[in-house]
């Protein structure tokens, strides 16, 4: 992307911020998307959640969530001092993948016990919200995987800000999970 951004006009410092501002603006827009879905979740959430309380495994999900939260730290380490530490990025990728595996196995268990998007309105809201977040995690894994491949195969072809842009996105995916985990799991457990 930044290859096209070499307009001579404004100061170089402004131009170097183009990709990061792009990601920031994208994150703002995506936040509005999640707000919309969370709004729907809150609107349809039944007053009596005792059934879901029995279904959802708070402790297990908390463990996988810690993996995801930890990956925010590792992705920051991968870029500390503006460097490109592939090991930390690989660890981030693994933590993200572990989270998705956790989500997948949880889905499998819930679906086999008859809890699905069509079983009741909580199921609709649960699978939609957590599923949309899971898709965002998947996109992050693809982005980090791409970064790793390029950083290994053609390190010179990697622009200076691409790495940072991916870390921003990954922090965002984490932050969304803080909210989703609270709204979906904690709120249910505390009810």
């Amino acid at each position, binding site marked *: *992307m930044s290859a*096209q*951004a070499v*307009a*001579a*006009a*404004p*100061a170089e410092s*402004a*131009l170097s*911020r*183009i990709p990061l*501002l*792009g990601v920031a*603006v*994208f994150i*703002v*827009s*995506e936040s*509005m*998307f*999640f*707000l*919309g*879905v969370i*709004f*729907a979740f809150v*609107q*349809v959430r*039944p007053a009596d959640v005792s059934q879901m309380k029995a279904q959802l495994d708070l402790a297990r999900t908390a463990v996988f969530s810690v993996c995801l939260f930890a990956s925010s730290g590792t992705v920051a380490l991968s870029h500390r001092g503006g460097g490109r530490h592939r090991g930390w990025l690989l660890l981030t990728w693994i933590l993200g993948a572990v989270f998705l595996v956790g989500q997948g196995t949880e889905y499998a268990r819930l679906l086999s016990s008859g809890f699905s*998007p*069509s079983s*009741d*309105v*909580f*199921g*609709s*809201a649960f*699978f*939609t919200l957590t599923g*949309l977040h899971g898709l965002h995690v998947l996109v992050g894994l693809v982005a980090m995987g791409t970064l790793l491949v390029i950083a290994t195969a053609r390190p010179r072809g990697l622009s200076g800000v691409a790495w940072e842009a991916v870390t921003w996105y990954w922090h965002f995916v984490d932050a969304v999970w803080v909210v989703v985990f609270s709204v979906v799991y904690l709120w249910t457990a505390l009810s």
Partner: protein
Amino acid sequence: MTAVAPPIARRTALFHAPDWLRTVDHKDIGVMYITMALVFLVIGGVEALVMRWQLALPEQHVVDPALYSQLFTMHGITMIFLMAIPILVGMANFIVPLQIGARDVAFPRLNALSFWLSLLGGLLLYFSFVAGGAPDAGWFAYVPLSDRAYSIGTGLDYYALGLAVNGAGTIVGALNLVVTIALMRAPGMSVSRIPLFTWMVLVTSALILLAYPALSADLVLLLVDRYMGAHFFTPQAGGDALIWQHLFWFFGHPEVYIVILPAFGMISEVIPVFSGKPIFGYRFVAASSVAIGFLSMGVWAHHMFAVGLGNEADDFFSAASMLIAIPTGVKIFNWIATMIGGRLRFTTSMLFAVGFLTVFVFGGLTGVTLATIPLDWMVTQSYYVVAHMHYVLFGGVVFGVFAGSYYWFPKITGRLLSERLGKWHFWLVYLGFNLTFLPQHLVGIEGMPRRVWTYPASMGWGPLNFASSIGAAILAVGVAVFAVNVLLSLRSGEIAGDDPWDAWTLEWATSSPPPPGNFVQTPVVTSRRPLWDRKHPDRPDPS
């Protein structure tokens, strides 16, 4: 124009069609957007004409009721998502980088992606006709009507998919414009020197980024409901049909400002240039746009007064809606004050700008009446709403776009549009537009509901509907004159030169059409009217 300063762009050949499939140049993509919009303008216009034919006389059977429902749904979707947004994004794409002295947009490849997504969304929507029937639940597709239980065909699926894809393109386009305007301005172009069209595009893009995702979320919920048997919108299963309306209008009302603000921007360029005066109150025009942007995020439930949200909520949204009249009124006075004492040149562009003022003020005033809850309860879902909405959307957006088209066509193509045909275009459109939509206020107050396929003669709505249909025919002739004007002028219009209007913003500093890369040297900006400064180095603009 005799430019005192040396030219900062080299000559290029006159307009040529872009390399459609591969181009990432902002000007090519702008032209592609505009072309897409004009094609859909014709399609949406034909849909409207068929509806007016059906309604011209009571108890006609030109089309059957099922097709009629598809027509009014597709007319609305087409005009908003496939005509208004693409034409505005297209003009912004072409003009904004030129106005700020940039070589291109921030992300040229993303720019191509956003165009192709927008077009793909449109094609998906229209594919529905051959896939078993177009969406037919109105452009806002309220649940439960649009849910699986009541819309068993695939029309609503194409609606959700098409709009989601189209919306993704629009979001990406807005992201691009925001970053471009924020970071790629020419040296010296501080925030208070950004041309007003670019200012309005910035506010519009911000609104797109905040509002469109709500629509995307809504469409995802609808698809999950329709395909996975979810229950978001089915109250009997614990869902809530109002979620759809809240999310839809959280997008849908800012959408009105998303499309009107760039038109405001065009008017803010056209009126000063053809009045021979700088805009009156530049800061107020810019700041009032930001105010409109903020307020527009907090008025969505005025579309829902009939839902029964309760007095407190209704009062809040009513008051907020009326507040918007203030920054909008500020702009109207700015434009009028700009004209007062100016040397007015009534080119076609200026005629449309002045025509815009008259019809848009009228549409704005009926908007205030609709924000009055008791009155809204009386006329909601009637032709009064249809009339109001067309006064702001057609009278506002389309008049603005026509003003902008005559103004920028020479920059885009290198040739002027014919002023003689332009005068015909303006007067036919002005007459046809008012004849079409003025009677609809009256027939709405008399109680005619919108979206009815026909009506009995005994209601007495025949004469007003007949007048409206005659108006629609005149309007269509007016638009056809525009089409002829564009086609003839593309071939043999008068050569425009760099700066045919003696204007002041940077797009007129380069050649017409601009070369790849836009400027040979980076322009340096020292005031709000950089080209004025180049032409009059002895008395530069102090702003």
